[in-house]
């Protein structure tokens, strides 16, 4: 339904997006995942016709949207990364404003506002000025405002940044419900793996302007099908343990995080005895050794050598 074809966006010094291809079909929730500065916001600005690409094309129902994006603009709703609301207006006044710019009026607008306020759980705060809202409430209103004109595609740019877990769950559930009950198509941008894993059917992973992986959750995890992730815990590590681990060719990836070490190793290698031996040799007291199911986080680590949130 909506696709990016070979999109590149250059700023003066940086190439924010490089040769990116992507598509969204009706009724899907698609995740766009990547660390800070990956180019997610740039990509979705291009997708929603707010930014012209340096090269490449944006197609909606097989028509190019670069020169004449009107048909696309009518059916998308965007949730910007920042809180795009008037802080001195109440929740209801904000909704009235953003409804009116879509030519909604009178009873219809009123009903729609009540309906959306209900959906985002702010019905009892409708008269309050946005300035007085918590971060989570602002985020929810930021989403609500994008749904007033019943968009077919909802494009969300990190809608859960910096909020409490409760609000976050609420938002995730709302998105899932909208998708189920109204077949709303959603493009969900995030740098939280677990959100994308929970919500999305298909996932694109970006890093430094490049698309480094794409496909369904399972397809992406297949990248690591032949490997295991092992978590080691100890009270402290010493230099020689770490350097000797690094020297082992079976270990493909390794990350030290406080008293935890994460290793990605080939499945078919018998590594446990080697680890135990090494610990003894360097007098490291291992507290726990754990093999976990592959997560998207591991895939990202595998593909880039970095953790997603670094």
């Amino acid at each position, binding site marked *: 339904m909506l696709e990016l074809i070979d999109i590149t966006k250059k700023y003066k010094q940086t190439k924010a997006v490089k040769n990116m291809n992507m598509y969204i079909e009706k009724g899907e929730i698609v995740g766009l995942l990547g660390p800070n500065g990956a180019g997610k916001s740039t990509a979705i600005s291009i997708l929603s016709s707010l930014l012209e690409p340096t090269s490449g094309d944006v197609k909606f129902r097989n028509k190019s949207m670069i020169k004449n994006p009107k048909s696309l603009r009518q059916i998308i709703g965007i949730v910007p990364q920042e809180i795009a609301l*008037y802080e001195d207006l109440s929740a209801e006044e904000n909704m009235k*404003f953003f409804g009116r*710019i879509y030519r909604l009026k009178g009873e219809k607008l009123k009903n729609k506002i009540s309906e959306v306020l209900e959906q985002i759980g702010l019905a009892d705060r409708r008269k309050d000025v946005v300035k007085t809202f918590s971060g989570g409430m602002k985020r929810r209103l930021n989403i609500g405002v994008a749904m007033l004109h019943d968009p077919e595609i909802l494009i969300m740019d990190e809608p859960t940044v910096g909020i409490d877990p409760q609000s976050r769950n609420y938002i995730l559930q709302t998105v899932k419900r909208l998708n189920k009950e109204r077949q709303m198509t959603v493009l969900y941008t995030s740098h939280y793996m677990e959100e994308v894993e929970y919500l999305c059917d298909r996932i694109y992973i970006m890093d430094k302007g490049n698309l480094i992986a794409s496909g369904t959750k399972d397809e992406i995890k297949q990248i690591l099908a032949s490997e295991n992730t092992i978590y080691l815990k100890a009270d402290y590590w010493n230099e020689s343990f770490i350097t000797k681990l690094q020297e082992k060719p079976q270990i493909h990836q390794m990350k030290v995080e406080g008293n935890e070490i994460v290793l990605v190793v080939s499945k078919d290698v018998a590594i446990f005895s080697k680890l135990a031996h090494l610990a003894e040799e360097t007098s490291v007291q291992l507290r726990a050794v754990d093999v976990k199911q592959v997560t998207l986080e591991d895939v990202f680590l595998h593909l880039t050598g970095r953790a997603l949130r670094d």
Partner: protein
Amino acid sequence: MRGILLAKFTTFIRNPWVFLLFTVMSIGFTLIIGYTGGNGEKITVPVAGAEEVRTGSIGKALEGNEVYHFKWQEEADMKEIVRLGEAEAGIIMEEAGYEMFIRVETPNVQLIEQTIADIYTEKIRESQVLELFQGETAAEEKAFLTAYHEAMDQPLFEITNDNFRNADSYQFDQGLHAIFGFTLFFVIYTIGYNVLPILTEKKEGIWDRMILSPLKKWEIYLANLVYSFFEGYLQIIIIFSVFHYFVGVDFYGELAGILLIMLAYTFTIVSLGIFVTALVKNIQQFNAVLPIISVSMAMIGGAFWPLEVVQSDILLALSKINPLTYGMEALNNLVLYNLPFEEILMPVSILILMGVIFMGVGIHLMEKRHI
């Protein structure tokens, strides 16, 4: 577009503090600088002359002048001061007459000349009266002159001199200058901080939401401009009303003309605001740049002191591209110098032209840079 204006006005009514602050500052500074102090603010005029002139009746008359501070100098020094432009005019005083040195012909120079001429007229009248009296001794003559002066102070009938800008109204003009200067200066801030939200709305995404909606882009711009214009102009009306109705300044009956000129000035400053907003990268830069622009505009535009005291050629050249210069010029030409209509139309036209250019370039840059 109505929606945007409504949102802006609601925001303004709930949060008018910045607006009020700049309005109050504008009025406060004008009151402090324009309407207090008085004689401390005399304009200094260098004069040269022989010892007997300095101590004689002419010297006394000069000393007693309420508007100008006449400062005795050596003739060469006086000429040098005038040549450097540190004073508008200098005078060589003799018993029989005077000679004026002028760098530029300003309305002030005419007033100085008027003042000096009055002194000599009075001196001639005195000597004529003395001749009629034909006193025998110096003491007699002195007694007669004292009586004469007393009589002059209590005339049978009085002719009031209603020439504009006479000695009594000068203090008033100092006040007018301050009203004009500070109004033009502070309104730059008010308008600046009303144009700034374009930048924040673009950054936060409110602007994106509007672009994706069926709103036309020109509607978005127009609504923002109309609103900034309104707030700037409202401030001007408030300031002038306060001085007219509460302080009792009559603006020589030109209040309507002043407000018309201010329409053009407000438009130009809104455009300047757009231009600056398009050039800066973020709010911090805007906050850093705005005071630099406004203060330098006020300094080289004649808001704080008359442009006549500015000497540097570079500054004078810069003042030619400064909207504030033309705002001050139009106001002064109308109210203080009472010049004909063309002399007011000229700076106003320049203001409007500048406004159009700033606006055009500003919007173009904003669109290009995708802030």
